[in-house]
């Protein structure tokens, strides 16, 4: 039992001042603005939006600024703020097939209808430091030391035509309006596990409103993973690949882009388009399952997250498939296949709260433990002394425990 303590107000006020000072760093260095974080640390903001389970890039940037870049602390701020807001309702389910694509790759098909679009990615960078970013502003191409150092050009200037690295966008035609989701291509051939809404298209379970029970259904699992810790899901996804869950998946598709989100307000009775959300979706294609009635098919793992967050979406889709073990009658021998383990430990705000509460004063509890261990030792000493007295005649019959 945790027994609260009182007092310490003056010290706590002083620590608030000190943390403000620590957060600001050297006052000779210009202060970073929330807009700068939003625009220039967008991937960190995406992580905070996901784990804070609230889409608002301004707030995510503010949270990162306020928490000195501590992502979990920032997610905590988002969660706390969310609880102060009324909920207007639930959106119309998103249609990711209408996504305005910024990036779309497939590891299963070379030639996809609509094409493969690399978009902005670090996948093909050399992971070498670009020191030009350290000293100068407006370095436009800053991923590869062999390219950077050029000054930013106004976008009207044409780079030399022989430069394969930079193609001006006005030479390119816009992407196709319709980019079919890759599993749907396999699905058309009947090779992919069907993904259909259950009878009546029921409202999803909301774990922010109702307590979770196990076994948990897929809607609960997907919601928990969407707000779960990226590192935890990455580790579990990795474990599945390494054999702790036996799966050999392919990335059917990763797509990143903007999707319109709609709400049907009661007072209007028609769908209102609220604007665009940036989302990342991953469709993982896994090996076969079949039954007496169904011929063998590929099986799916699905990941959908806020912002540009591929690692998270991919990890989620790996664990989503692993958690379907029960549905397919597979043995659930490994952590990634066990919904109770995954769902109870994926929430980093909860996990951090429970781990970090250990540093709060536990004086009374510890006093109790101290008294207990002293009593146990006292009793042991007394018992040993008693045994010593009675066993004095025949010395050491057996080895000591």
């Amino acid at each position, binding site marked *: 039992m945790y027994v609260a303590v009182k007092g310490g107000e003056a010290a706590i006020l002083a620590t608030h001042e000190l943390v403000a000072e620590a957060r600001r760093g050297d006052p000779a260095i210009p202060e970073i603005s929330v807009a700068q974080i939003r625009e220039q640390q967008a991937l960190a903001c995406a992580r905070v939006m996901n784990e804070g389970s609230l889409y608002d890039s301004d707030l995510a940037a503010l949270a990162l600024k306020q928490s000195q870049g501590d992502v979990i602390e920032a997610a905590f701020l988002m969660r706390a703020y969310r609880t102060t807001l009324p909920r207007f309702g639930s959106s119309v389910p998103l249609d990711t097939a209408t996504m305005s694509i910024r990036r779309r790759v497939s590891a299963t098909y070379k030639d996809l209808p609509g094409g493969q679009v690399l978009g902005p990615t670090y996948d093909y960078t050399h992971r070498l430091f670009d020191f030009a970013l350290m000293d100068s502003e407006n370095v436009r191409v800053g991923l590869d030391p062999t390219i950077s150092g050029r000054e930013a050009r106004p976008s009207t200037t044409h780079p030399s035509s022989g430069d394969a690295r930079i193609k001006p966008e006005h030479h390119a035609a816009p992407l196709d309006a319709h980019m079919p989701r890759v599993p749907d291509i396999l699905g058309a051939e009947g090779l992919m596990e069907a993904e259909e809404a259950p009878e009546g298209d029921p409202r999803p379970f909301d774990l922010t409103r109702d307590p979770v029970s196990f076994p948990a259904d897929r809607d609960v699992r997907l*919601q928990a993973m969407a707000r779960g810790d990226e590192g935890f899901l990455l580790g579990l996804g990795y474990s599945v690949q390494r054999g702790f869950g036996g799966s050999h998946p392919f990335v059917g598709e990763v797509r990143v882009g903007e999707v319109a989100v709609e709400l049907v*307000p009661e007072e209007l009775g028609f769908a209102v388009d*609220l604007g665009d959300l940036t989302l990342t979706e991953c469709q993982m294609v896994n090996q076969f399952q079949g039954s007496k009635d169904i011929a063998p098919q590929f099986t799916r793992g699905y990941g959908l997250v806020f912002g540009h967050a591929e690692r998270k979406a991919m990890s989620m889709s790996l664990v989503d498939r692993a958690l379907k073990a029960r549905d397919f009658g597979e043995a659930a021998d490994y952590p990634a296949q066990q919904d109770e383990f995954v769902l109870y430990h994926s929430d980093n705000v909860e996990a951090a709260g429970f781990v970090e509460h250990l540093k709060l004063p536990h004086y009374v509890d510890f006093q109790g433990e101290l008294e207990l261990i002293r009593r146990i030792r006292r009793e042991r000493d007394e018992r040993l002394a008693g045994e010593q007295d009675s066993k004095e005649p025949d010395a050491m019959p057996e080895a000591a425990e």
Partner: protein
Amino acid sequence: MNDKTPGSTEKTPRQIWMATLARASRSEIETLLGAPPAHEVLKAPETGTVMVEGRAGGAGRRFNLGETTVTRCVVRLSNGRMGFSYALGRDHAKARLAALVDAQLQDEAEGSALHGGIARLAEHQTAARQRASRKAATTKVDFFTLVRGA
């Protein structure tokens, strides 16, 4: 990419202009509206959340992805016409201005200056989407497979 307003299948003109207003900045709407007409605020700008739903696999069972901030506002012009605004984010001033534009657009004939203005705004948004799409298209890739041991 989409030439139309995103997700627009048989949308009413009002749905289309509300979508345009949701994506517009506060200053764009301010410029569009000009001097605000006489009105009363029926529902003051209020920020809340909307739970965003996805579907497993893109088309399957619904699930809750997470919430998003949304701000809404309802106004009434002196002639009784009501205007609504619902948009992502937390901009209260924008919500009120957008609700006013919504009310006025319902009142005005199709060829009015305000209708022209919102149409131009929609065009700008489409152009921006097309620009983003063309930028993405510059990274379109053709991988080819290498046959080993041939």
